[in-house]
Structure formats: structure tokens, C-alpha cells
């Protein structure tokens, strides 16, 4: 193995959030979680709302929640284009619960399909956030 690190980049529309060399990242792909180690075969995947685990020296160094997006993997790089990204420990539980409640209420009152879909998306993002807070940490 020539390389021992993956260059991991996390980008949101507003800014480049993270760019660092890491040992491994686990990304919540559209069709299941996948881990990226150096030398991974190139691929492009969708990302579902969930938690990205960043590994350094054998354990999880940070957990970042993303609300969907896209991931591009090459042998040496892993780029995640996230729609919204938050460090899991920074998520405010009460806030998310209110968001969820509002979204569910909006869903009940939504009249046209676009509104309904927007509310559904918000609700599923909020649920994924809650799941992220409660999820056990990989070791």
C-alpha cells in the first residue's frame, strides 16, 4: 500500500467545511453505508440523511450529520457534497424535536404535492437527526 490516508473533503453550498487526511470515512450512501479506505475503487453515490463517521488512529474522531447529498470517491480522495452538515454533538435535541413536530403538522395541512414533499423531506431529516443523536458510537 502506497498510501495510508484518504483525503476527505466535506463541502456545503456555502463553504468548504472540512478538508483533511483521514484513515477511513464511513458515508451513509443511498444504498447502504460504505467505508472508504485508501485505494477504494472510484465511485459516485448519492448520500441519504445520516451520519458520516471519520476515523483517525483506529477510532472515530468525529461524527458529522449530513442531510443528504452526493459522494465522489477516487483512490486517494473522498469528496462529500452535503446539503446541510452539522457536527453530531452540536445538534440541539429540543430544536430538532420542534422542527419534527412542525414538519409533521405541515404535512397534515399540506395541500399540493410540492408542499407535501417539502414537509416530508423536513420530517425525515429531523428523524434522521434524532436517530443520529441516539445512535451508538462505533468504536
Amino acid at each position, binding site marked *: 500500500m502506497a498510501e495510508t490516508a484518504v483525503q476527505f*473533503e466535506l*463541502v*456545503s*453550498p*456555502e*463553504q*468548504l467545511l472540512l478538508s483533511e487526511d483521514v484513515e477511513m470515512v464511513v458515508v451513509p*450512501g*443511498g*444504498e447502504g453505508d*460504505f467505508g472508504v479506505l485508501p485505494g477504494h*475503487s*472510484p*465511485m*459516485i*453515490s*448519492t448520500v441519504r440523511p445520516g451520519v458520516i463517521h471519520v476515523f483517525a488512529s483506529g477510532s472515530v474522531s468525529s461524527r458529522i450529520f449530513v442531510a443528504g447529498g*452526493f459522494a*465522489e470517491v*477516487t*483512490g486517494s*480522495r473522498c*469528496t462529500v*457534497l452535503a446539503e446541510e452538515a452539522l457536527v453530531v454533538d452540536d445538534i440541539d435535541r429540543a430544536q430538532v424535536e420542534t422542527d419534527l413536530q412542525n414538519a409533521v403538522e405541515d404535512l397534515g395541512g399540506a395541500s399540493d404535492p410540492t408542499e407535501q414533499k417539502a414537509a416530508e423531506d423536513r420530517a425525515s431529516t429531523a428523524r434522521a437527526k434524532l436517530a443520529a443523536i441516539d445512535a451508538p458510537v462505533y468504536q
Partner: protein
Amino acid sequence: MPSLKDLRVRITSVKSTQRITSAMKMVAAAKLRRAQEQAEASRPYAERMERMLGSVAASVSDVSSAPPLLAGTGKDDVHLLVIMTTDRGLCGGFNTNIGRWARQQIRSLVSDGKQVKLLIVGRKGFGMLRSEFGSMIIDTIEDTAKPTPKFDTAAAIASRVTTMFDDGEFDVCTIVYNRFESALSQIVTPLQLIPFSQDAAGDDKKEDDAATGDGPNVAYDYEPEENAILAELLPRNLSVQVFRAMLESFASEQGARMAAMDNATRNAGDLIDQLTINYNRTRQAFITKELIEIISGAEAL
């Protein structure tokens, strides 16, 4: 010959104008810094998105089965132009430049027998194009940058464009905005949004590929398969490009306003100097005249 009082009034009025323009310049300068940072911070996302889309698009073997956002409708009869202008004036040639480009483009499209539709962002663009092309304007979107451009606004514009496209209301969509080059120069930049054109994304991509060492021909695995990814990536890319245009345009606006107000402040200063000289000259002439009158009056006795 203006009287002394007239001159005094004019000097005061120019001075207060100067105070306003210099305050506006300061405000624009402060906003410019933030807008520039924001525009620069958003570039990585847009660039990577283009790169990713470029590689997916390149790998789609059968273009006809690709989503229409990529492949187009196969015609180019109806053009939609999205024109990014400002809500407020006093920013030099900013809107005029965009307007000039738009007018030329519309005329050449019309003379080629195409139908043109306009979606205008910003109050100023509407005012500018209303008289000549009022019937082509579909809608005007205002207050997109209050206080700064938001991604949600861009997404709303993009989804509107997508809906129109799905309804078959146009075949080709081009967005035109002022690209931020430096505080003093803005470049009118047209970018074709639909169908997605590789050339538009080409420039940034080449540099990036050279830097990272992986060419556009890396064989990617797709999860899910290409067309499903494209179906998600294309509308997303649209919002990102609109957002980017909004940010660039906003930064350019601040730059243009700063330059225009700097000029205005300087001109006001020159005018004040000129008026003050006039004022002093008139005052002296007046005093001299009075003296002559007194002296000649005394001599006559």
C-alpha cells in the same frame, strides 16, 4: 451671474450629496468584503459538483435515454434567459452592461426565428427591459439578496425553471450574471444551464484534473446507476449554479456600487472646489463694486 446666496445654497447641497455618496461607498465596501468571502467560499462546492456531473455525463453512453435536463429536448426553438440584476440602483454600469448584453442576445435570437422568454431577477432589470421586451417577461423575482443571497432562494428559482422545463415551456435555458473579477471589474457571463453543457464547466475542470492527477476518464462505479444519480444531480446542480450566480452577482454589485460611489464622491469634491472659487470671486467682485460706488460717490461731492 448667480447671486452669492444661490452659490452658498448650491455648495451646501453638493456637500450633503457628497456625504451620502461617501457613506454609501463605505457601506458597499463593508458589504463587499463579506460578499466576496461568501462567493469565494461557495466556489469549491460548485466546482466539485461540476466535476462530478461532468464525469457522470461523460459516462452515459446512450444520450437519448438520459434525463432531458442533460440531453435537452432535441430542439432549440424556445430560449429562456434568466437575467440577474440588482434591486437597487446607484451601482454604475452594472445593470446597463447586463441589459446591453441581454438586448443584443434577444435581438439576435429573435432574428434567428427563435422564441424568447425572460425570467428576471432584480427590480432594475425589469424596469430596463419592460418597455422593449415586456411581452417576453414571464416574471420578476425581487429581494433575492436581503441581506445576503440564500441557498433556499436559489433552489426556489431553480425548481421553478425545472418545472417550466418539465412542462415543455422552453428548450434552452441560459443564465446571465456579472461575474466578480475584482472590486473594480465585473464581467457579464452567460452560462447555459439546460441542457447541461460540458463546455460551460470545462475551464475549471481542466485545471482541477491537472492538479489532482485524475483525468475525466476514470471509470467510476455508480450507486445507484448513472441515470438515477443524474436525475438527482441535475436539478441539484441547477440550484447550485443559480446560487453561485446570485453570489457572484451580489459581490459584483457591491464592487460596482463602491466604485461608482467613490467616483461620485470625488466628482462632488471637484464640484465643491469649483463652486467655492466662483463664490469667492463673486464676493470679491461685489466688494470691489461697492468700493467703487462709494469712492465715486465721494468724488462727486
